[in-house]
């Protein structure tokens, strides 16, 4: 698919790579040069679809067919059109839902991790195992039951029922104790207990120890968990689609899907513009905080 471009650029890459390389001559060609070839091919594969979306987002009045000439015309028309489609409302909804979910997840997960890490109580081991078991049934599998639950809840608490952002947040918060708790539990355990014991001697209450000593020391893991929670609820489609019904309540995922659902009639340029705006913050977060996110990912959670 990309051989032509790859070949053209590979010679260039190899040429430039020769100069700074410490290894000289034949050995460099045999052992290192092909690595640059692989790199160029992979970069083309990774970047082409992204360039395609950016180009489509700048192509005025774009349909699917018209988007194929990359960067033929450049205009902000699609971005202006987003307002009429209600995109900014979706983005606002997504930001509210994801921010509140992230904060809630961090607070509740950290509190639970603190309890498991610092207190010895009856049922502690079973509690940890129970948490692990509860994760075996992911919420995506229960979406029918979630739909029926929220349908019933609507009669009692309309704000927690179907078609409510708060209702969706609560569903997401159901997953607050889960992978995250284990992640934090491990981190909490690495903080020496002598610290809280010393504070206790000085007359600090457990609340003071928690808020002023422990939470400050574990800030990095709190940031990671909050970030992972934000990204995963930002990318969630299934539950948001099941819960939210009126278009002004949609999140970005549900809204953009509705724009691109039928590719023959889809306002492809407008969708692309929305996709670019929705993706840029997440991509930037990812690139800048790569180190932390990767640390969290390898500790056992997979991005949704």
């Amino acid at each position, binding site marked *: 698919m*990309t051989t032509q471009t790859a070949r053209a650029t590979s010679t260039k890459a190899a040429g430039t790579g020769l100069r700074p390389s410490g290894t000289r001559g034949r050995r460099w060609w045999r052992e290192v040069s092909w690595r640059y070839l692989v790199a160029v091919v992979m970069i083309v594969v990774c970047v082409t679809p992204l360039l395609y979306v950016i180009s489509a987002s700048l192509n005025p009045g774009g349909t699917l067919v018209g988007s194929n000439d990359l960067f033929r015309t450049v205009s902000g028309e699609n971005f202006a059109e987003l307002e009429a489609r209600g995109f900014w409302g979706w983005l606002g909804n997504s930001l509210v839902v994801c921010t509140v979910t992230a904060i809630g997840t961090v607070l509740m997960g950290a509190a639970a991790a603190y309890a498991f890490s610092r207190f010895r109580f009856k049922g502690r081991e079973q509690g940890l195992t129970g948490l692990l078991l509860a994760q075996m049934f992911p919420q995506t599998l229960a979406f*029918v039951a979630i739909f*029926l639950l929220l349908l019933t809840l609507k009669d009692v*608490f309309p704000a927690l029922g179907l078609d409510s952002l708060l209702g969706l947040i*609560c569903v997401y918060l*159901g*997953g607050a*104790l889960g992978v995250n708790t284990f992640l934090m539990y491990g981190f909490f355990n690495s903080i020496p207990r002598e610290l809280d014991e010393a504070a206790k001697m000085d007359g600090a209450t457990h609340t003071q120890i928690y808020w002023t000593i422990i939470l400050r020391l574990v800030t990095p893991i709190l940031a990671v968990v909050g970030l992972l929670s934000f990204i995963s609820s930002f990318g969630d489609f299934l539950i948001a689609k099941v819960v939210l019904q009126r278009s002004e309540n949609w999140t970005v995922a549900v809204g953009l899907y509705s724009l691109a659902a039928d590719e023959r009639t889809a306002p492809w340029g407008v969708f692309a513009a929305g996709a670019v705006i929705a993706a840029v913050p997440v991509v930037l977060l990812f690139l800048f905080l790569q180190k932390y996110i990767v640390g969290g990912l390898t500790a056992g959670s997979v991005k949704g």
Partner: protein
Amino acid sequence: MSQQTIVPDSEHAPPDSPPGDARPTRGDSSPARNFGKGFLVKLAIVALIDAVGLYGILTAIAVEQWAIMAFLALALVAVNWIYFSRRTLPAKYLLPGLLFLLVYVVFTAAYTGYVAFTNYGDGHNSTKQDAVAAILAQNEQRVEGSAAFPLTVLSRDDQLAFAIVRDGEALVGTAEDPLAPAQGAKVEADRVTEVPDWQVLGFAEIAQRQQEIVGLRVPASDDPADGSLRTQDASTGYLYESVMAYDEDADTMTNTQTGVVYSPNEHGQFQAEDGSTISPGWRVTVGFENFTRAFSDDRLRGPFIEIFLWNFAFALFSVLSTFVLGLFLAVVFNDPRVRGRKLLRALLILPYAVPAFLSALVWKGMLNTRSGFLNQVILGGADIGWLSDPWLAKLSVLGVNLWLGFPYMFIVCTGALQSIPSDVYESARMDGAKPWRLMRSITLPLLMVSVAPLLVASFAFNFNNFSLIYMLTGGGPNFVGTPVVIGHTDILISMVYSIAFESGLKQYGFASALSILIFLLVGAISWWGFRRTRRLEEL
């Protein structure tokens, strides 16, 4: 809570500093005083929760949701006890998360299990009582020779009502509230002309809302058997009564015109002796019927088996392909002689950084047969049905998932490679090991220790990778002649979605049964996988 911080109050020592900062400055004051401020905050929060909970209990009683009421009552007792007792320290920290976990994970999981054994869905949505009322209402006809009532149409806040005069008394009723005497209504020549709080509709408005008015059914009384008041022309109302009659003692439904008697069958429907049934039915438990249905229904068996096998193949190939490519790239770029590795890594991580649902939608456009980027530009106007041919669509799904997923494996493998100490390699080289041998005997085994659990997790994730399938192909190309809308690239979870919401008739019971099936499969495989990788024992 907020008042405390906003209103300056000289009596409370530093009023707007958080409790933590206060400690060092007044280290020698009594603990009771420290406790005081936190206690007030706690009191305010618990009071708020109690108020909301109490409101919930009252509403739950009003709408007769006994389960919700009982849960709220228990939760309130638990909250108050835990936060005001001194012996429940760990629970103070666990309770908030636990409550959400109980409602939105544990309960929904258990409820999925329950629904799986019922025929819950369209046509079986509610209780038997509701079904009887619905049947009576749906089979109403105008009573032969019944009186015609001069009728007035009223409205209030978009709600419509009928007013008539019966036995000299003015009655008003809406779709929800049966006819009842209206205080202060004015009557002229058997027609109601004015009702307090209601607005009488004029010709223009009647013409505008004609359909709504003709469709309105105002119950004659609380008893559905008494029939209802309806109108055809918005000026005369007739009493309608159901041709169906429900005999509570015998538990049978009788059609009073034909004399056919219907009795309840075990599928939650009234059934006549000739086998005909009346809709709607009600919710009953149907045993394992939902679980065996995919195999016992001839039109479903073949497609279901294909989806089942494809689901495994999809998850397995996705994990393997992303892992192999990720590992390959990690090994290739882990060479210190390669320049610009940092930039390279940032570029290769891009597909993973973009939210997956967006990439899937973009790929859907790019793979479009007639106008997609791949066919039109890269293949120079080819006409390949990347998403419309059953096999090619599967290949496309795997390809796109490889694009989406390899950066994750690349990152993970790079991290794992860098953590392998270099002296292991040196001593192996001293012993004369060739590169391939190094890879097979040192790199892979050491890598697997940390990566294997992630492979299992990745399998479990991909097994239920709903958004990729739904966004990219929507499950299509569809099978022909199946009773539910499913296609060649559907996996089990997207089939569940289709059964529950998108196949015309909503079948929550069947959908839940499939969810349970997926859970058992993934659970068993993950359990086996994690046991193999000895992850569970690390706890």
